[in-house]
């Protein structure tokens, strides 16, 4: 009974203070890079003239004014809504389809060339077609975003379903798991990291897709703002719209990060970092 006194190797617990220092360090480095970028921007603006490159200061004040009078928020709202609705409408079937087709390898194989074609085809070229079909309103942008997101997420979810470890399935079956238990407890959680890789890649595409579709034809949204400003030779206005787009990307990226951290707590830290950097 003395053997109850095991001395298991303590699990790897990185020191929290060290991690905090690392984070502070990278934050301060990021500020330096930001300042550097602004300096280059300012230099370009001085060199080429404010007519071609609006100065950072002008852009910031215009952006602030746009926030106060609500015009930036008005356009940002449409772009954000198009991106988010399209993202959800595209991602949900893209995640569900590989699971549904898991037991039907022949159907998957038949679909494969079409999916590869859909994945490879330049979706932006579809924008004029969608505008013909769905009009210049929010619907055509949602359709374009959804189809872009669908193909990216479909292939990563498919990879996740295929990366299944059969030894885990056998273990579960021996322990009494039925088909549904295996899907729920093994296949689905195992595919989640792959799905997130796809979502992470698809997210900026969804915003980019919405903006480009607006540039082609719209009467509101940040892409419309870019187009309108450019038509009026207002480079400052273009930069204001681009900053708003970038901020939306940041917000959505933060949302994906948050969801990923919540759902993938079980992953080793180094693994998650590697995944994020891919």
């Amino acid at each position, binding site marked *: 009974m003395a053997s109850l006194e095991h001395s298991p190797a303590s699990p790897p617990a990185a020191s929290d203070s060290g991690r905090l220092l690392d984070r502070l360090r990278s934050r301060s480095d990021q500020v330096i890079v930001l300042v550097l970028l602004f300096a280059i921007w300012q230099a370009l603006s001085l060199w080429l003239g404010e007519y071609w490159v609006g100065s950072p200061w002008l852009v910031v004040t215009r952006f602030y004014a746009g926030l106060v009078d609500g015009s930036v928020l008005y356009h940002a709202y449409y772009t954000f809504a198009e991106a988010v609705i399209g993202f959800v409408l595209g991602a949900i079937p893209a995640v569900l389809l590989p699971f549904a087709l898991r037991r039907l390898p022949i159907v998957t194989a038949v679909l494969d060339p079409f999916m590869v074609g859909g994945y490879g085809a330049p979706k932006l070229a579809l924008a004029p077609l969608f505008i013909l079909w769905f009009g210049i309103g929010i619907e055509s942008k949602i359709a374009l975003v959804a189809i872009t997101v669908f193909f990216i997420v479909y292939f990563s979810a498919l990879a996740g379903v295929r990366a299944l470890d059969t030894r885990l399935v056998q273990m579960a079956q021996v322990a*009494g798991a039925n088909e549904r238990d295996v899907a729920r407890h093994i296949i689905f959680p195992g595919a989640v990291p792959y799905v997130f890789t796809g979502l992470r890649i698809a997210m900026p595409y969804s915003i980019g897709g919405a903006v480009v579709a607006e540039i082609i034809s719209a009467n509101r949204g940040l892409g419309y703002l870019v187009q309108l400003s450019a038509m009026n030779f207002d480079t400052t206005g273009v930069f204001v719209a681009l900053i708003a787009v970038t901020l939306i990307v940041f917000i959505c990226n933060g949302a994906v990060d948050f969801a990923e951290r919540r759902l993938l*707590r079980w992953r080793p830290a180094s693994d998650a970092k590697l995944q994020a950097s891919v």
Partner: protein
Amino acid sequence: MSAQPLLEVRDLSKRFASRESRDASLWVIKDLSFSVRDGEFLTIIGPSGSGKTTLLNMIAQIDAASGGEVRFKSESAPINDPKSLNPGLSCRIGYVTQEDNLLPWRTTLQNVLFPLTVQGRLNDETRARAAELIRHVGLAGFENHYPHELSGGMRKRASLIRTLVYDPPVILMDEPFGALDAQTRAVLQEDLLRLWEMGRKTIVFVTHDIGEAIALGDRTLVLSRAPAKVAGEHQITIPRPRDIRGIMSHPDFGPLYQRIRAQVQ
């Protein structure tokens, strides 16, 4: 040996199609027969590549046989058709595999409770049993750790008690302590013997370590090189409870070791 065997393997054969030609297929196991009594601790020893894992996979019914049968409590299990396999034969045959196969997205406790969860047997009583097993193998305090946060020995313990927790009458073990250092292995062997003395399950334990086979088993089977057959059978007469660390100095150990080693090629 008067009692009816709990588990019986009869003329079991397994063939893998060879890559070079279709006709000359490779027999890994050919006409292998043995039986296990209720409550017996059987150890099986054989050279690597002698089909030990394949044998356990067929008994656990995650792999189909090419011939022969496995009888559990005198009922014959259909194991020649991959489609009609019943893995774990309705939760009565537990299997501790070589790798721990813990689910990385479940904590230690959730992993240990996994069989009870899918069997729909999760209640206060079974939860208490799981907690007791966790305490017994020194995993208390690590219930909410994920597998990657555990050491190799701890993962092994978790996978061992994951099978013990639902109390299958037969437990198959495939070199469960193979990848561990000598010290951790000795501790885990002691743990296993102690848990076995408490519950007296029927255990079929495969290993390539002769010392381990003698230290743990009531009886040891020696398998030949592929195609595997029973090359020898040895009753381990060393009385229980055994002292794992001191077992080599027992007078019966040396002669047994010599005789088994002569048969393991």
